[in-house]
């Protein structure tokens, strides 16, 4: 569908700008909010070593959020508009990343990371040939870091699934998280989503990404003796995300679970309290 032509950042029409904005936000918001949740584990992980590992991952994701948000500088959006002064109902992240962690639920943190990291791996592959140069250029740097995240999640999953306590907790987390994970493949807006692919900003459709994700995630989780909800997903035509598997709110369209409002209020508290009008930049280039 893609014309194979590169878009010119200096000369974007309305349709291109909107598509770029939606794509940049779904990428950046996912990373930003997930990182925000990961940092809750700092100083609270099971060991000093796992603390260091998760801190690394959180900082990587924050760095990626900064890279994606910076792409949106091209359509005139700054950090205050993208985060600190934004209406929380316009955030485009998947509801998977905004869920609070039940206290001490390391199984949730690890499983969430796995579900997310597989999806991220696939979508990064679909951005390698993006028609937007700044996106294509940044994929490699992010992929380099994501490899370690996935390895970390898989190692821990295997270790936790080895014990009875761990398996039980993983199963609970899976039942809770799985519907939210499926929203990773929901459109922000069906028409704009079509444009994202037609313009070649991303080279795979969301159903294609969802199908591939299911074909990787389901067998792996089943190999750990976990029951995947709705595991009749694989029919004659292969895997597919269907409407009835999704939660009531889908994140991508701006609808969110309650916990998002609390999280947003918390993370903008200082900015509002000090009556700031712009976030402090330390680095000029992300």
């Amino acid at each position, binding site marked *: 569908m893609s014309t194979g032509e590169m878009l010119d950042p200096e000369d974007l029409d309305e349709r291109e700008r909107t598509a770029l904005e939606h794509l940049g936000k779904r990428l950046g918001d996912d990373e930003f909010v997930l990182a925000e949740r990961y940092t809750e584990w700092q*100083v609270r992980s099971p060991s000093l070593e796992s603390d260091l590992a998760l*801190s690394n991952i959180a900082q990587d994701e924050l760095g990626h959020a900064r890279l994606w948000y910076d792409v949106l500088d091209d359509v005139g959006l700054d950090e205050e508009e993208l985060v600190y002064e934004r209406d929380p109902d316009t955030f485009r992240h998947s509801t998977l990343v905004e869920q609070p962690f039940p206290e001490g639920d390391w199984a949730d943190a690890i499983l969430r990371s796995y579900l997310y990291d597989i999806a991220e791996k696939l979508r990064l592959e679909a951005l390698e040939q993006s028609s937007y140069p700044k996106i294509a250029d940044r994929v490699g740097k992010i992929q380099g870091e994501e490899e370690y995240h996935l390895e970390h999640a898989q*190692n821990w999953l295997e270790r936790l699934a080895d014990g009875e*306590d761990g398996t039980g907790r993983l199963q609970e987390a899976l039942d809770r998280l799985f519907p939210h994970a499926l929203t990773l493949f929901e459109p922000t807006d069906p028409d704009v989503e079509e444009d994202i692919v037609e313009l070649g900003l991303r080279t795979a459709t969301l159903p294609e990404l969802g199908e591939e994700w299911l074909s990787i995630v389901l067998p792996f989780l089943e190999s750990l003796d976990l029951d995947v909800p709705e595991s009749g997903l694989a029919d004659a035509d292969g895997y597919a995300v269907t409407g009835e598997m999704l939660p009531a709110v889908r994140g991508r369209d701006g609808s969110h679970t309650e916990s998002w409002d609390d999280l947003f209020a918390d993370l903008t508290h200082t900015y509002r309290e000090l009556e700031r009008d712009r976030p402090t930049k*330390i680095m000029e280039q992300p």
Partner: protein
Amino acid sequence: MDIEEVKERAGPREFSPADDLPEEYRKAATRMIEFHANSEIMGAYLERPFIRQAPSIDRKLAFSAKVQDEIGHGQLLYRAAETLGVKTREEMLDDLANGKGKFLNCFHYPMTEYVETPMVAFFVDGAAMRRQATLRRTSWEPYAHAMDKVCFEEGFHVKHGEDILRTLMNGSRKEQQLTQEAFEEWWPRIIQFFGPTDDKSTHHDFAASVGLKQKSNDELRQAFLDQYVPKARKYGLEIPDYPRIHKNDEGRWVVEEDDLDWDEFFTIAKNEYEPGVGQIDGRKHAQEAVQWVRDTIEADNVPAGGQPPQAAD
């Protein structure tokens, strides 16, 4: 080696695990390093909420990295303490959770607002830097070695704190006022960071005689005041009226000891100061919530962590 020989030989990086050291030395060194390691952990605990509350992505990243560094320092220091053969890391972490482990006075006070963060990240860390720099010459070689890395990273932390202070003091009137209020609240605690004066210090003589401690509390505090009173003023902070401080004939800052609340300090030192007890229990609670993971891993006999220890060098 007997204690007399230890005292005779005591010098920078003089002793290592290869030496047969008397229990008195090993216990004193363990107490000192354990205190230091515990302080890293409790400092990180105090600052963690500000990863979320930081008012920009860049600041958020810096806070996350700083908290991570501190956990790394804790890891490194517990390892240096373990080499003395007195306590294991597990025992030290358990003691910290159970309220037996001791740590810096400043980290017993809760921190609720962002304007307080430079009080720790600039002043307390600046004070810590002074002490840590001298510990690169401590007689227990693994401790001195750990200090090389810790000091390097602490330099960045102080810069981070200084930058936050500079931004706040160049901000709106409201920001400046709130920052001044936070400074007034934290200033006496910061002065007490170095502990009681030498004549009232419990452990100083022995630790100094065996080369563990390189500088006395008085010397360190003096050097800190000489450097940080001008810095505070440079950023527009006013030094509070109490505790009274004045310059003596040699141009050095002198504090009225009686203006400092030493009862509170010693209550803190015993881990009996109420707000501090809350912080210790809060951390204990968080640790208990993930006990099941440690149990799972231990049953499995796999070392904890998903990667080689970060802070190892």
